[in-house]
């Protein structure tokens, strides 16, 4: 029943949101209402239970496919006439979870209950071997609950985020996390370690720039055993901006002659071919069109802006005709999201906003309105964008859900986020 209702709703919204640059405000009242019950035994750490509950609430809200009852509710796992209906809350669905621990592992049993009939629609058990990663257990449950009602996938919630954060002058760490920063583990520390970039879709290794040696170097780290391999070194600056879909080629910003340009680096042959050729700044290359073309940032018009170029051609196409300081971008199919400085003066509020354009239309959609919104990155679907938000003295991960027109922030407790990938 919910599947049918939601399918109709999503079909209708898809009709109007075929162009993501057009805002569509959906009627939230039409979404299924879900309540979450904690059925965990009292001898399990209460802090874990509450955190787990909050992550589930957050995930389902961020999905934008539910109205979520935010009250912390407890019940027995078996349920009963009151617990299976929650008449005072009037939910459509009840997600009931029961946590348990064994050595390092955390287990979760869940039931999805139709609150109109009181009957269990689905029951599953989950386990995560390393209990410190329990947020991923919650995200997996949320992804499955979302799939159960037939809503568009939110599988991106299960992706690992990797980010660098400045800790002090010339010092930064590379941290592995979930998208809410509930789980964090420092992977690289000591010195200046920046621009981490996943090496492949399965996220078992990543590249990053280290300033530990005489010149900046890009290393590849295997997460399985922590082994590091030096890929390339170069004077001036060196950044791995993107990795091809097959993982065999990198887009590097290199400056072998003190001049930053974008190069295509073949991991097998160790050969770097220069793609852009301009005496100013060319950075932040991003593969598009099946890796045959790149989108990048250049100051070739006298200010930073977004351009595109075929890898085997020197013809450069200007992609954005708005703003006078567009200094970072990410592309997905026909969409480009970019960060633009709103005020030419450096102290007039200093706002950087994110904008979305389609290469097929002239419409521009503004996605943010306060603070510095930087380093946008599309998820594996074009409906979700992650970015860095600096506002006042806080540095946060931001997540934008385009169809729902909603933005969420997950602040970092210490340090300042330098760059992200997911």
């Amino acid at each position: 029943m919910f599947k049918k209702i939601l399918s109709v709703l999503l079909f209708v919204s898809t009709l109007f949101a075929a162009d993501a640059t057009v805002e569509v405000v959906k009627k939230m009242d039409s979404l299924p209402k879900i309540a979450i019950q904690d059925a965990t035994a009292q001898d399990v750490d209460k802090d874990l239970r509450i955190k787990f509950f909050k992550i589930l609430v957050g995930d389902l809200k961020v999905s934008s496919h539910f109205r979520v009852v935010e009250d912390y509710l407890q019940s027995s796992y078996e349920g009963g006439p009151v617990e299976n209906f929650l008449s005072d809350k009037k939910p459509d669905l009840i997600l009931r979870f029961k946590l348990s621990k064994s050595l390092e592992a955390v287990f979760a049993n869940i039931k999805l209950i139709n609150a109109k009939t009181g009957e269990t629609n689905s029951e599953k058990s989950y386990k995560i071997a390393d209990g410190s990663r329990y947020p991923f257990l919650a995200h997996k449950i949320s992804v499955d609950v979302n799939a159960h009602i037939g809503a568009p996938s939110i599988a991106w919630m299960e992706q690992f985020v990797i980010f660098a954060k400045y800790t002090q002058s010339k010092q930064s760490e590379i941290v592995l996390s979930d998208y809410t920063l509930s789980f964090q583990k420092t992977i690289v520390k000591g010195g200046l370690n920046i621009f981490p970039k996943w090496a492949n879709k399965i996220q078992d290794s990543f590249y990053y720039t280290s300033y530990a040696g005489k010149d900046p170097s890009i290393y590849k780290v295997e997460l399985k055993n922590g082994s590091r391999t030096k890929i390339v070194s170069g004077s001036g600056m060196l950044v791995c901006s993107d990795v091809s879909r097959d993982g065999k080629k990198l887009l590097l910003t290199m400056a072998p002659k003190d001049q930053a340009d974008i190069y295509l680096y073949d991991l097998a042959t160790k050969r770097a071919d220069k793609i852009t050729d301009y005496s100013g700044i060319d950075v932040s290359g991003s593969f598009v069109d099946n890796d045959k073309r790149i989108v990048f940032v250049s100051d070739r018009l006298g200010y930073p802006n977004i351009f595109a170029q075929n890898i085997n051609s020197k013809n450069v196409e200007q992609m954005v005709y708005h703003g006078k300081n567009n200094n970072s971008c990410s592309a997905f199919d026909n969409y480009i999201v970019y960060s633009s400085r709103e005020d030419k003066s450096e102290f007039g509020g200093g706002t950087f906003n994110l904008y979305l354009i389609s290469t097929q239309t002239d419409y521009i959609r503004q996605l943010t309105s306060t603070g510095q919104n930087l380093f946008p990155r599309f998820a594996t679907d074009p409906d979700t964008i992650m970015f860095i938000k600096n506002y006042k003295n806080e540095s946060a991960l931001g997540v934008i859900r385009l169809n729902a027109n909603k933005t969420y922030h997950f602040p970092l407790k210490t340090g300042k986020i330098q760059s992200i990938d997911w």
Partner: protein
Amino acid sequence: MKNIVLMSVAVAMLVLTGCSQKSPEVDTTKSADTKVSSVSDSVGATPSVSDDGSSLARLIASLEANTKVIYFDFDKFNIRKDQQSSIEQDAVLFNSKEANNFSVKVEGNCDEWGTDEYNYALGLKRAKSVKDALAAQGVNAERLMVVSYGESNPTCTDKNKACWDKNRRAEFKILP
């Protein structure tokens, strides 16, 4: 009625693959890469400097303390007119008898505004502008190296214009 209930008791003992493997850390402070490998190689090439490491370090510290930091305008990398005298003083210092056997690393830095990859490139352009200006003043370009630290190396962390002005700079490291 119960027969039509979708009772999919899918007890899928779901192990989140990959998660448990992502645990090792890389601590580069314990890595050989953190050592400046070029230091001992080139000490012999500086006859005017005592082989005593602390004496060499004192000389380098003294030279670095006498360099003039070069400041830049917002989002710019050209040498301002008011910075030209600092460039000239730095050129004289680097060509002095005490310093002319050393290499000089020009470090470009930025304020906190903007996206980091662009800022690293901007810092590099600043360092390159200083390198070219020093070369124009007679410093051998082969002694000059450039590197960008983007916004990672602020000298001032307050949130005001005067502070950001101080961070948009190129400064120098003397290398034996």
